């Protein structure tokens, strides 16, 4: 049964960007997920949200779904490329441990947003997922709908360099791309955001074009690289300091503030990378430095209640 059937027209995921988002939220809420809100920091992907990155570690069951604005400074195109943005939305689902019917649940979610399995060719195509800055990897697929990648489906094997026990299933929907397909438009900017028509219609362009232009200028031309290098070093130092200060015998008392600093370092690195001031050889070493922070945070998380410590 498609959830959309019970929604008003303006909330129809095939007409409304926010309708798509709300439909997915409702779908996964009905399957026992806590619906989190976006993390209030700049991250490159929904995986970085502590609701995935930290919660996927340790033995405690966890089911969550949320939208995460994702910042990819390098992908900015001043709003001129129909498919590339420096800021876009991911819809993230994390189920720990993964239920045995996760593929079926995923397919049901596609039906819920209006994809008819009798008309569309859905395929699971090998894609080994890896996030070097988070020290995370898993096996899974790109999910294709009629030749288009609409989601990433991953069974986490390792996060923060730590074996996942149990394994989480992670679903990431690229919302803009999915919406373009559902609404049958060629450019993200043309998306109907609120599902209304005429004077009341708000497009993706109206909401985000100006931001894309401004941030592209900032990301590529004006971000203060000296300040970013400094901020990277400061965040790195503070992350380490917090991890040290939070140590309390068998337990750790300050993992999440430390992890915030790890995220800050990661974002500074992404901006520096977009500014083109990091050479190929340096690049690897910056990634490694962030990974070391992420690993240390993950290890500390296991010493908290959320991480399953007794």
């Amino acid at each position, binding site marked *: 049964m498609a959830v959309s059937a019970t929604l008003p027209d303006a909330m129809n995921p095939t007409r409304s960007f926010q309708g798509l988002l709300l439909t997915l939220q409702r779908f996964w809420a009905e399957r026992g997920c806590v619906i989190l809100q976006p993390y209030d920091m700049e991250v490159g992907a929904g995986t970085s949200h502590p609701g995935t990155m930290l919660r996927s570690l340790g*033995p405690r069951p966890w089911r969550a779904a949320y939208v995460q604005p994702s910042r990819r400074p390098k992908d900015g195109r001043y709003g001129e490329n*129909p*498919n590339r943005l420096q800021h876009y939305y991911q819809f993230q689902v994390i189920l720990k*441990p*993964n*239920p*045995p019917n996760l*593929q079926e649940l995923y397919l049901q979610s596609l039906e819920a947003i209006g994809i008819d*399995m*009798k*008309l*569309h*060719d*859905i*395929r*699971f*195509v*090998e894609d*080994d997922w890896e996030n070097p800055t988070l020290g995370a990897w*898993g*096996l*899974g*697929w790109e999910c294709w*709908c*009629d*030749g*288009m990648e609409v989601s990433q489906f991953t*069974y986490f*094997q390792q996060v923060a360099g730590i074996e*996942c*026990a*149990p*394994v989480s*299933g992670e679903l990431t929907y690229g919302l803009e791309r999915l919406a373009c*397909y559902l609404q049958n438009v*060629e450019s993200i900017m043309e998306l109907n955001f609120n599902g209304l028509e005429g004077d009341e219609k708000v497009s993706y362009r109206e909401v985000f074009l100006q931001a894309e232009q401004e941030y592209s200028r900032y990301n590529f031309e004006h971000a203060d690289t000296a300040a970013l290098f400094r901020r990277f070093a400061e965040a790195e130092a503070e992350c380490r300091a917090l991890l040290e200060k939070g140590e309390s015998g068998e337990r750790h008392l300050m993992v999440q503030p430390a992890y915030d600093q790890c995220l800050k370092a990661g974002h500074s690195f992404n901006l520096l990378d977009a500014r083109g001031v990091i*050479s*190929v*050889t340096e690049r690897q070493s910056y990634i490694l430095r962030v990974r070391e922070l992420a690993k240390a945070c993950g290890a500390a998380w296991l010493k908290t209640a959320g991480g399953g410590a007794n």
Partner: protein
Amino acid sequence: MPDLLLELFSEEIPARMQRKAAEDLRKLVTDALVERGLVYEGAKAFATPRRLALHIAGLPVRGRDIREERKGPRVGAPEAAIQGFLKAAGLSSLDQATIISDPKKGDSYVAIIEKPGQETVAAIAEIVPAVIRGFPWPKSMRWGAASAAGASLRWVRPLHSILCTFGAETEEPEVVPFEVDGIVSSNITYGHRFHSAGAIPIKRFDDYVPSLEKAKVVLDADRRKEIILNDARTLAFAQGLELVEDEGLLEEVAGLVEWPVVLMGSFEERFLEIPGEAIRATIRANQKCFVLRDAATGALANRFLLTANLVASDGGKVITAGNERVVRARLSDAAYFFATDKGDLPDLDTLEESAGKLGLDLAKPLDQRMAKLDKLGVVFHAKLGTQGERVQRIAALARELAPIVGADPDLAERAAKLAKADLPTEMVGEFPELQGLMGRKYAELQGEHPSVCAAIEEHYKPLGPSDRVPTDPVSAAVALADKLDTLVGFWAIDEKPTGSKDPYALRRAALGVIRLVVENGVRLPLVDVVKNRAKGIFEADYHFSKYTFLSQLNTMRELFRDGEVAAEVFSDDERKIIDEAYYRDEDAGVDTAYGILTDRCAANLLSFFHDRLKVMLRDQGARHDLVDAVLGEGGGSDDLLLITHRVAALARFLETQDGKSLLAGYKRAANILKAEEKKDGEGAFSGAADLQLIAGAGLIEEKALAVALANATPAAAAAVAQEDYEGAMAALAELRPAVDAFFDQVTVNDPDPALRVNRLKLLNQLREATRAVADFGRIAG
């Protein structure tokens, strides 16, 4: 005889792993059966995206009984020996043992152990779970609640069910009972993900395949390939088009669908301005679709073929439209890349230094990219500098090699400088497999000389034993320079291929050099080239030099006195030579050390080339022992072309009766000499035979051989000097009647010591005469 049917049903298995996994399953299960004495008539394995299946036909119901005799101690042996025997044989008392009598050794115990053959069902129930647990997936994973425990099952993707039945055609087969991590074997399978619902009970292979077909699953990958290929050709033909066939893509696509449905889509004609290879690459890599060409003109058509996994209710309209959307977006990207690559880079002023260093013209887009590659400082190999430095080396070498291969030095240098310039282009960044080809396109667009354009594409060739060898001299110069730079570089830093490890494809590079030289008839002074290049690499001051030999040598200046560093690199004898030079003059010491390293590098690389040449000839079905014969002792020539000519001439000669007979004569002479040299000492028969003695006391055949040798030896040597190997062989052929007659009529070991020595000298002259052409002693057979 009963059959086994096994199916492992899982979530989607990566296409590239399916075929090997099916094969592994077959081998692991059948090997384990045979190990238990369970032989079978036939076995075949299958794979679809969601299952591996195995059918083994003609298995026995139970294995053969095994009767084993275990010898024990003699009767009355010490108690410890008796107990040990009972324990080893699994007996509780001596009553269960048999006593046998031996007339010599007396009475002793024997345990007769009879094991009834294992039920095949029981064997399968043991074998299959073990095979599943230890399956050699290239990458495997854990999943679900069970993964909370340490040793949970690993599979390529979550494994959901196992079908395993065993039974004869005439009876109801039984489910082989076992369990793997909570998955209990059954007789149930599942059909197509979208075209079939619920469990399907299966009896055996005979109803398995049709039941799956009914549930829209084609089990056999080769059948799916056939269906795709036929449908693709038919659809293409109907439009007057031709399928651009692609076996790798076909194999992959067949691994992505259980029920293939081929559909045709199209894209805007304007995209055809993008180079066809780039269109094909993007549609193939990203969309896994086939492209089509006009049957008449061969030009790429604005159509493509996709393979869906669904019989859609609208006949595939929506699926086609969706794929067209994605193809359009991808081609828009490719068009953007192509346009960007043809235009100027934004930061030209920052590239002037690189352009100056490499002699590039920043008014031209491809030159800009090369300057950018240099500026970026991309490392080729930590010990061999950056791509920019490497290109400079290749360009210098291409210029040096140009006259040798008959190329214009300016063109060769220019081509070498642009050969890697497409690496930082957008198009090659997106599609690495287009390297070289895009460089050529961009070079053509900026009006480079046709030979330069060709060389940019062809300098990577030949990529293997069956790849085409470039014939344009400019291409040959750059191709040789590229490969030789790589080989000398890795030899200089001592990262040679070992065993199966050859991460830089150095064997392929060496084979490439050999084929370029041989097939283009190039006389390459390999040792000189290698020495010059190695010296350059040792002396170059790369940023990374702290890791190289060079630094060891630099610090050696300081460490010479205690000799420790030198000892890591040089032998005692070498150190003696270096030390002597060093005490004369520090620089002379370092130069000597460099010299030893370059000589060693060259000698070692040369013998690598000789080995590759042997492998190449062997692969071509030629006699590689002839390479050893031609090379002779002491390493042999570095002229690869000449070596192959000599080998060919020798092979032809040995096919003739003269050749065979002379070889036999040589072997006989060599054997006699070997035996007699043992008595008289090495070199006892060197020097010319005494002709006076022969004239006076010798037999007629002896005289004839002396005369023949006197004629043939200088003739063969002269021919060799002129590189006329056919001539040299012909000269040797003249010896044959005299040699045959000599061995027929002359007794070498004459009682007269003077005659004996003289005859042995004649044989030694024969050995020497052949050695001038080839070392016949190294010819097999």
